[in-house]
């Protein structure tokens, strides 16, 4: 077998051109109901399944330290029953469809997600609407869920990896609500009572704040009729207004946490662009050059060559307010100091010299290839449809993003590294 290395730039370029169109026709319908609810339906004949994502403008970014975790708390109580049936009956009804129905909070939204065999799409939509529009929100369930949420907060604290990430967000974002944990804190959870849950639900679960996406083996016209029947009568109400948020300020911090663990965790992060920022694509490519995949610099250098870390990668998730470019290592305690130095060297390198053409091509191929692959299942497609509305970037975002990534130059990556990896926050979790 001949070495394939020399072929990389050529075939990678071809790959970029060839991933756009799936072989099976899929189409998306986008409709806004009179009450403000946005509906997105994607017909996808591939598998006999259907997935629903209902996203609500309610998340950490609308929270304060006093009520931290309330968005997620509301979702936890919602799944415990509606005005028509108990949580157990709800669970049985969903299971009878071969389905799943759950709800969670996130930083920019709360999501009710459900899925089932496609032949049950009507029943699934019905149950999803029932949970979103007529949850029982019983006082006893608020108390029960608080106890479970407190146990999950404890579990996150016990996990070295989660603990390190939570410390990082808290330090990096300062007074901006992205500093707050999605689950909340023990103090805030104890303070949030039944009245607060009900009030929050009423203010935020309004049609103007909701995006409903459906993807699967369905007919858009039929689904739309059912959606109008279920959601059309909902009154617009007076939705909560969005206050301006304090901008996070980049500053140099170093936080060391000690806790029982086998592995040391090292995180270095800079404040980075929001999803709608023109620099977004360049930072995505930068993140991938540094720590995307197994040919990313961190994995190739720190793990494969130097064996200084077991886990080595970089993250940069799309969010509405400033994002976080996070470089992450998990390593043996004995290696922690050397690994951190090696990590800083990689950051310095990406800030001082441009990435090579081949390296950039690898990063773009990896980034766009993964992006396409991630959008193949109905669950993910429903998520993306709703998410791009939550972020107000439009349904043509995938195409614009793809073109923006392809246009990123070595110079743009260098500029991005200098702009977003100069003032950084470091968190080190050391086993004790």
């Amino acid at each position, binding site marked *: *077998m001949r*070495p*394939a*290395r020399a072929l*990389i*730039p050529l*075939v990678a370029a*071809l*790959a970029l051109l*060839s*991933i756009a169109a*799936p*072989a099976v026709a899929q189409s998306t319908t986008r409709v806004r109901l009179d009450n403000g609810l946005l509906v997105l339906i994607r017909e996808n004949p*591939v*598998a*006999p399944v259907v997935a629903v994502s209902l996203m609500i403008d309610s998340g950490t970014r609308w929270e304060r330290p006093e009520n931290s975790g309330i968005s997620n708390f509301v979702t936890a109580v919602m799944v415990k029953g509606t005005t028509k049936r108990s*949580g*157990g009956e709800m*669970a*049985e009804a969903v*299971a*009878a*469809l*071969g389905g799943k129905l759950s709800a969670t909070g996130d930083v920019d939204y709360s999501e009710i997600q459900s899925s*089932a*065999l*496609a*032949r049950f799409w009507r029943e699934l939509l019905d149950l999803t609407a029932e949970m979103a529009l007529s949850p029982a929100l019983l006082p006893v369930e608020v108390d029960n869920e608080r106890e479970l949420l407190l*146990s999950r907060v404890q*579990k996150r604290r*016990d*996990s*070295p990896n989660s603990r390190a990430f939570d410390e990082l967000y808290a330090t990096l974002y300062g007074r901006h609500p992205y500093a707050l944990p999605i689950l909340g804190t023990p103090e805030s959870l104890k303070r949030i009572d039944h009245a607060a849950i009900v009030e929050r639900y009423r203010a935020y679960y309004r049609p103007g704040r909701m995006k409903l996406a459906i993807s699967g*083996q369905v007919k858009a016209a039929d689904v739309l009729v059912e959606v109008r029947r279920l959601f059309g009568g909902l009154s617009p109400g007076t939705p909560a207004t969005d206050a301006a948020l304090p901008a996070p300020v980049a500053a140099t911090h170093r936080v060391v946490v000690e*806790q*029982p*663990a*086998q592995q040391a965790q090292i995180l270095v992060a800079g404040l980075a662009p929001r999803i709608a920022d023109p620099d977004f694509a360049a930072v995505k490519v930068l993140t991938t050059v540094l720590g995307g*995949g*197994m*040919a990313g610099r961190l*994995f*190739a250098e720190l793990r*494969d060559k130097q*064996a200084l*870390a*077991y*886990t080595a990668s970089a993250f940069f998730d799309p969010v509405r307010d400033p994002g976080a470019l996070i470089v992450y290592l998990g390593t*043996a305690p004995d290696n922690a100091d050397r690994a951190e130095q090696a990590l800083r060297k990689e950051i310095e390198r990406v800030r001082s010299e441009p990435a090579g053409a*081949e390296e950039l091509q*690898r990063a773009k*191929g*990896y980034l*766009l*290839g993964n992006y*396409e*692959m991630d959008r*193949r*299942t109905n*669950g993910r497609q429903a998520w993306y449809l709703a998410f791009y509305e939550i972020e107000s970037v439009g349904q043509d975002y995938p195409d614009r993003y793809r073109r923006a990534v392809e246009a990123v130059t070595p110079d743009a990556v260098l500029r991005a590294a200098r702009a977003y990896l100069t003032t950084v926050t470091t968190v080190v979790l050391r086993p004790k």
Partner: protein
Amino acid sequence: MIARLALAATLGLLLAGCAAVERGASPEATAGLPRPTREVLPNGVVLIAQEQWASTVVALQLWMRVGGRDEGPGEVGLSHYLEHMLFKGTPTRPPGSIDRLIEGFGGRSNAFTSFDYTHYDLVLPAAHLRPGVELLADIAVNASFNQADMDAERKVVLEEMRLTEDNAENYMSRRQYEVSYTPHPYGRSLLGPPETIRTLTRETLSRYYKKMYVPRHMTLVVVGAVTVAQARAAALATFGRLPNVPASRPDVSVLQPLAQKRTDDARRPEEQAFLGLAWRTAPVNEGDVYAVDLLTYILGDSPSSRLNQTVRERDRLVFSIDDNYSAWEKAGLVTIIARLAPANLDRAEASILGVIRGVREGGVTETERRRAIVTAEASYAFDIETAEGLAKAYGQAETTWTLDNEIAYLARLRETTAAEIQAAARKYFGDDNYVRVRFVPQAGAR
């Protein structure tokens, strides 16, 4: 986030597959698992190919009939170590070039080690079928194991051992297997003892590789936007040219249910406790798998399951509870894992046993049986949404049982009666033949 981790004990019986059409279902609900083309090449390599035009990618998976159970004295951990080394390089592929090649295509790679098999997975834009198959055939027999890579990977694997211990649920799963199966090979750590890894030489690894990585142990699965003819041509030109050599796997005994209870307690840094119960049940080739699989769904698969409704919702003894059934070639294990307050450990165990006793004595309802079947059908439908999901179902079936069994799976589930489910509960799930592992917080932790 973490690539190439050993899949120690998390593989459930995801095999569920079928093309059976439910009577009265509408045409759009009948898309099922297609029967792939299966061909045995003259040198013993099995080729499984299936066209799937749902997207523009192709999944390429090399399934090896090599796993933790095949390791002899001094070899424990080598199957997994090989998995780490194969993507490192061959004489014609310098270190790092394989990852750059795959990722430059816009593809991904991954690999998994288990008791019965090891598999190497690629997902690539379909245009790269040929270089992808060439790569798999190359690493299957020509891996270099250069000394620098060996030494670097040694540290990575030792680190992986530590990492397993940091996550309580993963570690619980591993302990359940160790306690349930010892001294059978399924009871050994897939990662091996640290000492073996620390002192491992290229010669020892090469010897194991040459002995086990032979055509008769190989299955190549190709699923995606390529024709069967293209897949076949690529396989014949690469895997088809490997020399035919004899192959053998060590004999491993089939495990029966335990005669008595086994217990193990460990102190852990977490402030919460974990309770794991496990019962040895049917291996994958036994007729009981269908009843045990349905029973597992009914007991603990979803929020509506008996364990969730009783132990979590009614008795409020646990924060979370799940079960899982792993059917291997020589043994099966149903595991239950709960996260809970330390003070509730005894009562939660009693409550779980009560739920199981309820099935033994009172059986399951027709509603529960139907719900379990439709859940299995859905879980299968979602698994095959992607080319790699379908390829995995084929590869696992070919390696640990048969494609025919796989394709008939859902039909067999549908034929399974409530009486058979109760009989399986009576046969395998006793009050005194299970394994109990508990993690309790260290005294005065934090």
